[in-house]
């Protein structure tokens, strides 16, 4: 059949031009952007160092070299690592629970309109109000152990995961569901072969957003009431005006946040690879 050849021939000039544009865009992305990014970081660090030295003796802004030294000291200290372990435990357990609850709940909320209508006000409430005031409540219910911190992490992240998962499910094209039904797919098959893959980008976006909020929940629980882990280090260093170490711990927490976000972006990229 020569129909394909004809169709391709018609598309050819546009494709080559688009390819050329793509190559230029790619080169820009591959070389220019990383260089620009590195430069901006360098400028920022230099400005920080300069400002820190000028304000020597002040507690507010230690020079970046002092912070780096403090960070090195922390990384060599086993007490820092046990604090980090306590913090990460709450994050990982909490996020695992968030996924275990949020994804199935989101699938049901998205697939069963009645449930969606019932649950939606609560989800909107959880999304709209800050979850921090709930932390003392969790302490009353769970005590000041791991459970209260895990509950905080879950409370921060689960609603956005449910909402995004449900949105992904609702975005399933009805024509694909109809196609599957037309070929005799049972409801379970429609769900597994059509709804679930269609919802995957929504689930992945939900995971990325929930992960960011989970990190916030992790920090908030330790700062507000349950003084353990990295949060406790922050409280200690700020109480003793040890700004260099304070910044060092903050940098560690930021790094955790960035690492989690990166990991989730990778998950998302894989989920929508076919696009």
């Amino acid at each position, binding site marked *: 059949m020569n*129909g394909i050849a004809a*169709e391709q021939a*018609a598309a050819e000039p546009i494709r080559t031009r688009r390819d050329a544009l793509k190559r230029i865009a790619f080169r820009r992305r591959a070389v220019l952007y990383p260089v620009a990014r590195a430069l901006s970081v360098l400028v920022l660090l230099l400005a920080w160092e300069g400002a820190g030295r000028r304000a020597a003796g002040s507690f507010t802004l230690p020079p970046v070299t002092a912070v780096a030294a403090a960070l090195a000291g922390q990384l060599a200290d086993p007490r820092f690592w046990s604090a980090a372990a306590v913090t990460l435990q709450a994050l990982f357990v909490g996020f695992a629970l968030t996924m275990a609850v949020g994804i199935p709940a989101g699938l049901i909320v998205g697939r069963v309109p009645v449930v969606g209508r019932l649950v939606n006000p609560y989800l909107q409430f959880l999304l709209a109000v800050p979850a921090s005031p709930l932390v003392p409540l969790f302490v009353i219910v769970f005590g000041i152990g791991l459970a209260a911190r895990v509950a905080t992490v879950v409370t921060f992240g689960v609603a956005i995961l449910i909402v995004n998962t449900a949105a992904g499910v609702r975005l399933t094209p009805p024509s694909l569901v109809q196609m599957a039904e037309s*070929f005799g797919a049972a409801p379970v098959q429609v769900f597994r*072969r*059509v709804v679930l893959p*269609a919802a995957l980008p929504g689930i992945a976006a939900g995971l990325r957003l929930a992960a960011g909020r989970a990190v916030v929940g992790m920090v908030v629980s330790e700062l507000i009431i349950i003084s353990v882990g990295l949060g406790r280090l922050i409280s200690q260093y700020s109480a003793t005006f040890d700004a260099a170490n304070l910044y060092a711990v903050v940098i560690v927490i930021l790094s955790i946040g960035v690492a989690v976000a990166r990991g989730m972006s990778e998950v998302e990229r894989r989920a929508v690879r*076919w696009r």
Partner: protein
Amino acid sequence: MAVNGEVVIQAVGIGKRFRAVTGDDLIALEGVSFAVRPNEFVSIIGPSGCGKTTLLRILDGLVPPDEGEVRIRGQRITGPGPDRAMVFQDFALLPWATVEDNVAFPLEIRGVPLQERQRRAREAIQLVGLAGFEAYYPHSLSGGMQQRVGLARALVVDPEMLLMDEPFGALDAQTRHLLQDELLTLWQAHRKTVVLVTHDMEEAVYLSDRVLLMGPRPGRIAREVEVPLPRPRDHTVRRTAQFAELVECVWDTLRAFARP
């Protein structure tokens, strides 16, 4: 409608209503009756909104009629069946699946083992001229190629009947002509029973043995035009006076519907 001899699809007094926004019932189809012989190519044509897509969905069993029934070889249908396969206007391809997985999808649903699935999918892909594109994703294919995938997916289950819902409506004119030619070739080689819904008069006359014309709401079969053009046909038939006359004949009826 009198059709003598063997009948494979029979629509008997099909009626369908939809609840409109105003709360009133909108009558989409009323008293639609017709029959399709085995190996016959029948087109249903009518103005947009006449319910022809709804009618096709009822024939497939996706939507139950409010009145009347569809019989396949005398048996009343209650849902989709393995003897029928649909080709969709918007292609309805799974964007996350490759061409091969899309074509194999109906077999997967039916629990056909992987190896046989692959073999049959590749055969069907070959049949529609897409060999070499098995590993492509739908978004990287042109509209015409996507609909070839849709056609291969319908053919892979080797159905007795093909139900086609404006399959070439979303394509540009050249691609549409190419695919019409190829569908004609395929049909002449395999002789499935085909019900094609279209709004393209030339397409209907070119491909069909019979054209059923539907009137506007409530949709019903207003007229039937036999197409006595000789078989096997090819694109040269489009240039004959007989072809022009038949298209004109269909157009006369449709024009009458278009008048307010």
